[in-house]
């Protein structure tokens, strides 16, 4: 178990990167705490697997350093870094039994046989593989194989970190949920530093203590699931996290309020203060969960309800404001959307202002 420091880390797959666009990972400085569960979240091609491979040592970063507990491991190959990694597709040793598979990383490191036996039994129990310990690994089903791969990652007690590269891609949806919970349980039991790569926000938010959101090779936010939801620091986070994502409206500032198509929208005073210096393109953002219809005697921004989708225990209303500005709004399952003369209320505490895609305030 270890703390992971990324110091001025950047990576390009090109020999001589000319501009920021040539970098698969832009420069970043982060400290990941010992025993934390971190998720690297982002769309395909955002650099999350590159970052994971840099931590595991499969890729050497073109700039910066990687430290495990203060020790520089940038130049060490994976086998000398004391990490474990679980890949997207199950990697198992076909000719070995389940127990031999689990024992393999330990045996290669000269762990005493009695301890190996103890440890493999323990891990197999955690992952519900006890019944098939003596079966040939090649005969397992896809999900059991992946559990076995995970087991091989978790079996060593001295690892600095266990890295997961989208490990649940091949798993059936109903088992996904189960395995994710299992992993969380194991994390609480063993307190290993876990780094988990995924493009699935549910997976990231339920698994991790801290989520690292990557977008075009940049870390756009590192925060708890709650922070990502309540205070997205970048429009991408707002848009990527949540279903549906955050609503964004181009605006300008006037007299301490945001103006959208001539309608004034209140913002918190401190935000307005910070925004004074901003020169970039301004947008306001609000989550569908916080946007609401005006009640009796309340004033809001006029809008038309285009469509209401019933999703079981809640509804999503699509509303139009002005010309072609569409917003989503989340309603309780038994609240009816007003059919005519709807007005939208933007609660100031949940209305965020973005300048050049970055959160203001």
């Amino acid at each position, binding site marked *: 178990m270890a703390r992971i420091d990324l110091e001025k880390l950047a990576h390009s797959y090109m020999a001589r990167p000319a501009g920021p666009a040539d970098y698969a990972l832009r420069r970043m400085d982060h400290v990941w705490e010992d025993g934390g569960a971190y998720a690297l979240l982002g769309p395909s091609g955002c650099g999350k697997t590159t970052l994971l491979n840099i931590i595991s040592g499969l890729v050497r970063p073109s700039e910066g350093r990687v430290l495990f507990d203060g020790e520089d491991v940038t130049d060490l*190959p994976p086998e000398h870094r004391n990490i474990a*990694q679980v890949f997207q597709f199950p990697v198992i040793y076909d*000719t070995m039994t389940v127990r031999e598979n689990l024992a*393999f990383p330990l045996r*290669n490191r000269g762990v005493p046989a009695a301890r190996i036996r103890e440890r493999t039994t323990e891990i197999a129990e955690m992952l519900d593989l006890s019944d098939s310990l003596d079966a040939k690994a090649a*005969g397992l089903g896809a999900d059991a194989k992946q559990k076995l791969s995970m087991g*091989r990652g978790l079996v060593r007690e001295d690892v600095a970190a266990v890295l997961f590269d989208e490990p649940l891609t091949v798993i059936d949806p109903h088992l996904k949920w189960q395995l994710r919970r299992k992993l969380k349980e194991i994390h609480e039991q063993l307190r290993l530093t876990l780094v988990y790569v995924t493009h699935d926000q549910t997976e990231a938010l339920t698994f991790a203590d801290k989520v690292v959101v990557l977008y075009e090779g940049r870390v756009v936010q590192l925060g708890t699931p709650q922070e990502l939801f309540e205070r997205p620091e970048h429009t991408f986070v707002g848009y990527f996290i949540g279903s549906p994502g955050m609503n964004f409206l181009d605006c300008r500032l006037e007299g301490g309020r945001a103006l959208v198509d001539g309608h004034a929208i209140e913002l918190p005073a401190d935000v307005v203060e910070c925004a004074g210096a901003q020169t970039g393109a301004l947008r306001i953002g609000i989550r569908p969960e916080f946007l609401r219809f005006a009640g009796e005697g309340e004033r809001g921004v006029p809008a038309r309800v285009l469509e209401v989708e019933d999703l079981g225990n809640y509804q999503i209303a699509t509303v139009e404001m002005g010309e072609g500005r569409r917003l989503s709004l989340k309603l309780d399952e038994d609240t009816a959307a007003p059919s005519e003369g709807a007005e939208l209320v933007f609660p100031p505490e949940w209305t965020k202002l973005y300048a050049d895609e970055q959160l203001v305030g």
Partner: protein
Amino acid sequence: MHRPVNQRAWLMVLPVVLVVSFSAIIPLMTVVNYSFQDFFRGQAIWVGTEWYVDILTDPELQAAFGRQLLFSGLVLLIEIPLGVGIALCMPKRGVASSAALVALALPLLVPWRVVGTIWQVFGRGGIGLLGVALNALGIDYNYTGDPLDAWLTVMAMEVWHWTSLAVLLAYAGLQSIPDAFYQAARIDGASRWAIFRYIELPKLKGVLMIAVLLRFMDSFKIYAEPFTLTGGGPGSSTTFLSQQLNTIAIMQSDLGPGGAYSIIYFLIILLFSYVFYQAITNIGKDNK
């Protein structure tokens, strides 16, 4: 239940039946027919299984069969491990890998007769590079006179000509192993040997079975190369089954024994191929 009967389907199969009849079944039946008769001054006399008994009990033919088994066994023992070894050493990608593939494929393109001629000249004591070099080193090497030298030369020629096939198959098999397996093995702290033993070899099992099957069938039928090189000699030390069949059926025009010989030869190859085929199709089923 009513099942539609459509006899016209037979028409669709007819062309294949005709082609196969003329290309395989009728010629084969002719050979079967020969093998039960004696042809003497234009007369055919039914002799039953006499030729079969003759062939199976002829010590010379038994010796040739023994040599053939030894030859094919050695071919498999040398070419398969050597092929895997070379494939493991080959560059995985880039220009170098293409160059290596082309260089390796070259011997496969050379016709059998030409291979025999090349090695015949190559090994000659007086003029060939190999023969002259070995003799200059003080080694008494003469493949036309010494049976062991003849065998070594035939084996070297065979290995030179066909190992590439095993290399290409093994190389293709290795290329299809995802990188994640190697990365996982590195992280698990596996040694190079362990990677070979637990990842590469199990993943190569399928292609290696095919390589074994192809090399076995081909080497069991070998004819032109040793015949060109040594003519089957010295004595009959490098006379294999095909050459012997050729002597009986074509040179001596003994159609009866030749027919019986062909059938036995064919059945042996069929039997071995069947065993290999069963092994291949059952591969991996044992652990399901």
